[in-house]
């Protein structure tokens, strides 16, 4: 039982790497699409809606397979510079996870933008604050603070999502657990130990978010 822990912990490091990098890119994507979404131009608006609808309406596994197996099928991409990136399962996983979490993050941020009280923006306008400064100094900070609890949930959902990386040959925590199961024929030990590690990571993320909420939480 103890002997399998080191290899699982090695896997957990990969899981955390996947999580951190996809959350980072996902946040940027989400922010961009949330801003596009509150744009008044119907085409930009619809485009952003379509993006989030597609990535929220299909399973993460489909997206992962589309990127890992599907993109490699396009001759043009195979001959281009992108091949360096998309031939690696690790990068494919990060692309898929980032796009997926980006869609959810854009929805979270959008609803945060839309629930900002109109009074704040009107007050800024009447004080002669420019639109740009209103956005960066008033709307954005409030939106980020308001979306903290929902974003915390999204991080935990993504942590669970990274386990799918194991089906495209990445040896993350789940992949290591599968290997242990195959080598030792002890499914309960392998998967329950991995489950405990996952729970432990969830617990830490949950507490960090709780702390941040307490410190920066926004009360309306």
């Amino acid at each position, binding site marked *: 039982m103890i002997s399998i822990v080191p290899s699982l912990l090695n896997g957990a490091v990969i899981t955390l790497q996947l999580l951190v990098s996809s959350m980072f890119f996902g946040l940027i994507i989400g922010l961009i699409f949330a801003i596009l979404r509150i744009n008044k131009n119907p085409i930009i608006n619809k485009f952003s809606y379509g993006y989030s609808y597609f990535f929220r*309406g299909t399973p993460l596994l489909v997206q992962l*397979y589309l990127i890992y*197996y599907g993109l490699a099928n*396009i001759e043009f991409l195979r001959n281009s510079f992108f091949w360096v990136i998309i031939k690696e399962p690790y990068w494919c996983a990060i692309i898929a996870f980032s796009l997926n979490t980006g869609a959810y993050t854009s929805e979270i941020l959008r609803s945060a933008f839309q629930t900002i009280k109109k009074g704040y923006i009107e007050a800024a306008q009447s004080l002669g604050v420019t639109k740009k400064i209103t956005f960066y100094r008033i709307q954005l900070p409030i939106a980020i603070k308001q979306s903290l609890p929902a974003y915390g949930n999204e991080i935990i959902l993504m942590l669970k999502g990274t386990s799918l990386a194991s089906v495209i040959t990445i040896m993350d925590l789940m992949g290591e657990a599968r290997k242990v199961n195959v080598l030792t024929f002890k499914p*309960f030990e392998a998967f329950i130990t991995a489950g405990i590690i996952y729970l432990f990571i969830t617990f830490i993320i949950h507490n960090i978010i709780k702390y941040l909420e307490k410190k920066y939480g926004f009360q309306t």
Partner: protein
Amino acid sequence: MELLSFGDTGWGDELFFATLMTIAVSIAAMAMGFVFALIFTPLKLSKNKTLNVIGNCYTTIIRGVPELLVIYLLFFGGTGAAMYVASIFGYNGYIEINAFITGALAIGIISGAYSTEVFRGAILSIDKGQFEASKVLGIKKNIQFYKIILPQMLRLSIPNLSNVWQITLKDTSLISVTGLVEIMRQSYIAAGSTRDPLFFYSVAAVLYLMLTFLSMKLINKLEIKYSKGY
């Protein structure tokens, strides 16, 4: 488009039946989830500390570990357990348990945890005065539950249950790793034998989008129907 024709040359009929399989697994999982939720919601709301801890453990653990882990645990662990039980009775061969049942059970356990939270929230949002009023009127506890709490709970939880349904529907794609032929598995097979993964995974994505879109429409109708008079 030829690839999608029905009959021996195309994958249309295979994908069609795979879609039906996805729907069947989702419904079975959702129903099992309801059973789990109806067991664990009272535990979570109970005043007894031990029962409370059991209820909380269920929802916390299941919502904290990856879905894939639950599926693997049931699939590999279930096979091991079944073979162990069989060996007691003198059968030592390999037993493979049904992928549909394990898959639906695994997803059911997961969706049950989400449904439990939804039901708990719905019961907590029912006005306290109703509990007191029924107590004053001398209505028995179980009648109070079936005639007063349950109908309101179901109505209040329709919007959130639609989210749970979407999650469940998408989670069923994970059962493909155990070999059950649903949309994901069928596209995997088709992609493998035609060497056109881009096309077949796009078809899978479209099928899932159709399912989520249609179920959304249906649930919205239900919501309007049951919120009449409120």
